[in-house]
């Protein structure tokens, strides 16, 4: 078998944790590329994709828990999970620091996710071998 070159990847996820296939497709793609021996550096959640980083979604018992799956994937493969802070604030995905800053009583950014600026997306675009948008 010929040895294929290992590539670095970042994924851009624009679809919510539930309601469209976008984020689930991204997850499957992430698993597949890691199985092939490539490196997944980061997943940048943008637009409705930031909802993937909410700790307050409760899927039905017999349904796939995508937020948990992202967390497990990130832990096992050292993948950065980045939610765009501007998109997240608009959609009610709030870290403790932002809750403090904006005088909100609650915060709900799931463990393992980090708020990032759009500069992170630009850096990923310019740094990784491949960037795939979902």
């Amino acid at each position, binding site marked *: 078998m010929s040895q294929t070159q290992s590539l670095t990847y970042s994924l*851009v996820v624009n679809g919510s944790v539930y309601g469209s296939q976008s984020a689930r497709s991204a997850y499957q793609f992430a698993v597949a590329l890691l199985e092939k021996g490539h490196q997944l550096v980061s997943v940048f959640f943008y*637009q409705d994709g930031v909802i993937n980083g909410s700790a307050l979604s409760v899927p039905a018992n017999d349904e796939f828990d995508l937020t948990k799956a992202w967390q497990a994937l990130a832990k096992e493969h050292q993948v950065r999970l980045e939610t765009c802070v*501007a998109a997240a604030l608009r959609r009610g995905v709030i870290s403790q620091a932002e809750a403090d800053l904006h005088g909100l009583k609650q915060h709900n950014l799931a463990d393992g996710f980090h708020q990032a*600026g*759009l500069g992170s997306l*630009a850096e990923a675009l310019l740094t990784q071998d491949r960037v795939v*948008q979902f």
Partner: protein
Amino acid sequence: MSQLTFVFRSCPHTTSAGREGVDALLAASAYSEEISVIFLGDGVGHLLSMQNPSEIQSKDYAPMFKLFDLYDIEQVFVCQHSLQERGLDGAALLIQAQVLNVEAVQQQLGMATKILTF
């Protein structure tokens, strides 16, 4: 060949895609000078001047497109076929954009190394 290509292909204001796309584009322009922008399909609606989106409680983000010059984003294209399909051929456009036929749009997309679509 541009390092980054941003494609706008959804209607302004119907979804936030265009608004958040131009946010991402302007942020990326701080990191790269080789950026192309293509308005395609319903995305050509972003280029219509004299819109008044506050009437529908929507942010008027057209001024962000006018920053292209300031941010040195010079490779700006619009699909002629998309304009024609929507009866917008010859309409006053918000910013200067090079009008491309379908083949030329395909060529631009084919040459792009990384593409984000909004």
